[in-house]
């Protein structure tokens, strides 16, 4: 299979014929006046490059265009935020008159105020940028899940979660398992949030339910959360710390969290409650029969 140290090339007759085929877009019928030997050679080249047609490819999913458009929107948002900063920057540094002490003091104050605004905007923009990258990663996982389900008769990759049966009436719950997606359906870096705090949490949390609830989620045709920024309650429980059910994920320095919904879209929330009154992190015993509980 390997060709150690040797350069490969075509013989002159093949190379010349390949050049001629390229000029006619590999339409052999367009080549006029070929001798029998040339005809055979052209056919042989076409047979070789024609093997490329057998490379396994799949058509694009409908979600690909939506995800691309979302990415373009995010880029535009980012650009607008940058423009905002540049405008503030220009305003802060414009000058051009003779200075007196009161002027200098005024300018110094203005610069201090403008600098604090720029620093604040810079932090905000950086946080927004990281949040967008995080949402992009989620969208890529969502597309991977859709493609996986498409290739597996609608089944989602799940795995049993041991040790939580007490919360689920004695039944072992299942959660989404991203492992089978890696490589073919999404990349490893898609499973991480780039906006995590220095304290640690960087991954995502995955919807966890009893098998029957999974089925009910699909039957109800209700929008539900598939994955989210890391569950802060679980972190607190595991480390024996007290926890507040209204806590937001640590992934974005405690400022809100992103969620991937089952329709492939992503949303950004400033608190744990979602549509219908359920909470993302904990079983809240709501009236809807479907609670959200994400583990990681």
């Amino acid at each position, binding site marked *: 299979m390997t060709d150690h140290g040797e350069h490969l090339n075509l013989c002159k007759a093949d190379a010349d014929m390949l050049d001629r085929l390229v000029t006619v877009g590999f339409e052999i019928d367009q080549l006029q006046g070929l001798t029998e030997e040339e005809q*055979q050679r052209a056919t042989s080249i076409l047979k070789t*490059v024609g093997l490329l047609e057998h*490379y396994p490819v799949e058509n*694009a999913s409908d979600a690909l265009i939506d995800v691309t*458009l979302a990415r373009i929107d995010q880029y535009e948002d980012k650009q607008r935020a940058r423009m905002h900063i540049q405008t503030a920057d220009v305003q802060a540094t414009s000058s051009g008159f003779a200075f007196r002490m009161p002027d200098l003091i005024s300018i110094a104050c203005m610069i201090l105020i403008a600098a604090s605004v720029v620093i604040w905007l810079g932090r905000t923009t950086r946080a927004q940028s990281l949040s967008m990258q995080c949402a992009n990663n989620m969208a890529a996982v969502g597309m991977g899940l859709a493609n996986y389900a498409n290739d597996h008769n609608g089944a989602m990759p799940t795995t049993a979660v041991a040790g939580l049966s007490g919360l689920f009436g004695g039944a072992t719950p299942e959660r989404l398992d991203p492992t089978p997606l890696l490589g073919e359906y999404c990349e490893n870096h898609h499973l991480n949030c780039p906006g995590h705090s220095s304290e640690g949490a960087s991954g995502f949390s995955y919807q966890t339910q009893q098998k029957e609830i999974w089925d009910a989620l699909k039957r109800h045709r209700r929008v539900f959360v598939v994955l989210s920024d890391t569950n802060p309650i679980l972190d607190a429980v595991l480390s024996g710390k007290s926890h507040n059910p209204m806590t937001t994920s640590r992934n974005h320095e405690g400022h809100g969290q992103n969620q991937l919904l089952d329709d492939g879209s992503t949303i950004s929330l400033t608190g744990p409650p979602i549509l219908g009154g359920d909470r993302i992190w904990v079983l809240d015993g709501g009236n809807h029969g479907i609670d959200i509980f994400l583990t990681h």
Partner: protein
Amino acid sequence: MPAESKIRTDEELLAAHIDGDQKAFPALMERYKDNLLHFLIRFVGKRAAAEDVFQEAFLQVHISAETFDLSRRFKPWLFTIAANKGRDWHRKHSKRTMMSLSQDVGGEGEGARFVDLLEGDQEMPEANLLETEQANQVREAVDALPSHLREILLLSYFQQMSYVQISESLQIPLGTVKSRLHSAVAAFSNAWKSAQPQEQE
């Protein structure tokens, strides 16, 4: 035919996008989504990565739309951007290729081995195996090509771009384009033959 039912060209769609028509860009993506994704899957070898590169390519088209000369054809420009993004992906994920063809093959230099395609006529895949084993063999043979050979092979065969178009798009000399395509075909043929089961004497 009523004027409103006229199908807009790629260039007209791009012009409409620049003018703020919000339906134009999705229509352009819809038109090329399968063709471009197939090209990228063959180029980067992974569907997930190809979808990432697809998004980056169309984002770049959006960013650079106003600089595009609308008297030129859109398709070669799109595939050039996609090829560049695909090359960036290869650079980021570079690993040793299976063949020692990572250097430019300048043609008939010392040490070159010449393949005569007529002498070693290719065995075509048997129909009943096309979908599985032999399709994978084709994939392995393509994936084993260095990216700079693979992109020229794919652009010339699937997009039917001429040597001049490829040379202008990738900004490499015409002679280099030719020699790379020759090398790509020779290497692909060699890899394919190597992957075939040897006949018993």
